[in-house]
């Protein structure tokens, strides 16, 4: 199996911070890999290293078989990057932006023009193609930025937090766009703080914390590593949340998590129906909105693997 990315012992320091601290990672061709981790985990530094934008302090990083240090120019010919900001020019039209990037990617004028048109069509931007990007919504800009990274027909697309700051509808649209690309054979390396995003898009998830890989595998493999299932109880009234938590504590299943803001209490249990029965008995008489027995979500996986939650923002999203 050919490797698209092969990283061995990568280190990078910024002052006293070790952004990458001996990171090892391999990604096969034909996969969508999501790097998951909290702010400051080293995700962006790694993606920037793959994009030849970071001078590594140590380790070896090969992309498509080329060493990023020795063959940076060759790496740049197979990758494309869409960063955390939509790097499109507001004073140009969508079409002009794409044609510019296509020309910079080595296309001649005619091929740049046709490539821009097809990307505009594919992302549903044909109608606004000749309007200035200044007038676009945030979601449209991100889509255009994603499109801009595609006009050069890259083998590997690097997406650094592609949906951060987007409204839910734009996120889903962007996900669809990314899935379509993947369907057409583009490999993707993306970073995200959103666990549902990794779950939705990626065939492989790599969890990073403090510049190292904490765990890697398919989303379901990672969930299995946590073991068991989660019982989640959604109380009707906030005052009952503590009571429910107390009742679950007595059952001695596992650690009880409660979130008063959303009136939810969750506990991980061995995979058996009887535990659900016991739990229900324990909370008898309390008014409930909903009870569920489910697979752990990736944020719970992260918590189990690293011992600390991803970030408040992620938890918020996960429960919403």
């Amino acid at each position, binding site marked *: 199996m*050919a*490797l698209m990315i092969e990283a061995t012992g990568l280190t990078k320091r910024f002052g006293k911070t070790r952004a990458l601290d001996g990171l090892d990672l391999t990604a096969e061709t034909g996969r969508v890999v999501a790097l998951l981790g909290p702010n400051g985990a080293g995700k962006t530094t790694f993606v920037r290293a793959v994009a030849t934008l970071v001078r590594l302090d140590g380790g070896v990083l090969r992309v498509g078989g080329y060493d990023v240090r020795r063959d940076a120019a060759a790496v740049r010919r197979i990758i494309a990057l869409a960063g955390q900001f939509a790097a499109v020019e507001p004073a140009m039209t969508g079409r002009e932006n794409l044609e*510019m990037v296509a020309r910079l990617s080595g296309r001649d004028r005619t091929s740049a023009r046709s490539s821009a048109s097809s990307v505009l069509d594919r992302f549903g931007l044909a109608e606004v193609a000749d309007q200035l990007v200044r007038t676009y919504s945030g979601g449209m800009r991100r889509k255009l930025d994603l499109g801009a990274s595609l006009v050069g027909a890259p083998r590997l697309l690097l997406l650094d937090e592609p949906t951060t700051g987007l409204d839910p509808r734009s996120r889903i649209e962007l996900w669809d766009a990314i899935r379509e690309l993947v369907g057409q054979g583009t490999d993707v390396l993306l970073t995200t703080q959103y666990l549902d995003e990794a779950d939705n898009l990626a065939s492989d998830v790599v969890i990073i914390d403090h510049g190292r890989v904490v765990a890697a595998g398919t989303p379901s493999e990672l969930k299995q590593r946590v073991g068991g299932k989660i019982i989640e109880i959604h109380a009707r009234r906030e005052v009952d949340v503590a009571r429910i938590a107390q009742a679950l504590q007595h059952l001695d299943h596992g650690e009880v998590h409660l979130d008063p803001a959303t009136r939810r209490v969750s506990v991980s249990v061995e995979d058996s129906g009887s535990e659900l029965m016991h739990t229900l008995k324990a909370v008898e008489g309390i008014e409930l909105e909903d009870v569920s027995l489910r697979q752990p979500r990736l944020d719970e996986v992260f918590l189990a693997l690293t011992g600390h939650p991803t970030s408040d923002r992620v938890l918020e999203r996960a429960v919403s």
Partner: protein
Amino acid sequence: MALASMSIGRTTGLGVSTLQIAQRALLRYLRTPQLIILGTVQNALFLLCFRYVFGGAISLPGISYVDFLLPGFITTSVLFSGIGAATVVAEDLEQGFVDRLRSLPIPRLSFLAGRALADTAWNAWGLLVATGVGFAVGFRIHSSLLDALAALGLCVAFGFAFEWFFILLGLMAGTPQAAQGMALIVFPFTFLSSAYVPVATMPGWLQAFAAHQPITYMVDVVRALTQGAPAEALLGHSTGYWVSGALLWTLGIVAVFAPLAVLKYRRS
């Protein structure tokens, strides 16, 4: 495991990439009418203040104040445009445009080359506007047209030289606001030159600086070239003196700041 390296496309040429980047930079200026109008109005107001507010209090032998002032005003306009250039460079860094460029198969230098090209063209346009406003308030050329055109060409060259200084500031600043703040440093330096008043009216210790700093040479060469003999008499040196001084400073500024900017760009 030995890996077969992937087949790859070719690298884009320096010419194409520089032109594409310059085109974007120019469109950004041209399609921001607020910038053009505000810049022009601000410039004109600034000129009117000097021409009509201070101008009445300043009388010079053999030359009218408006003819003395306008070369200063026109020449220093390249410095004021530079403030915008530094800001835009910092913006391109902050907003990910430079990251995108660096991940594309283009020569590294095309970003700086494209910016320098676009900003120089923009400067040339600004010089024409400033000259036009100058004619409107009574500025006249008292030499040959050829000399005047040479003065204009020199101004474009000065702008090109300072461009590297401003690019360096933009690369170092971190944020566009900081870049703008740092670039404003040029403002007092225009006053500590012969741009608005003759150096001879300044106290001796200040004259030592003002008489030898680049802005003075650049302004005075434009004066000498557009006003001829009366300017030479007032400034105390021949046109040739000012031309060679201004060119030396221009070359010096490029020689120092262009490599620094390139180095900074490669490292960041």
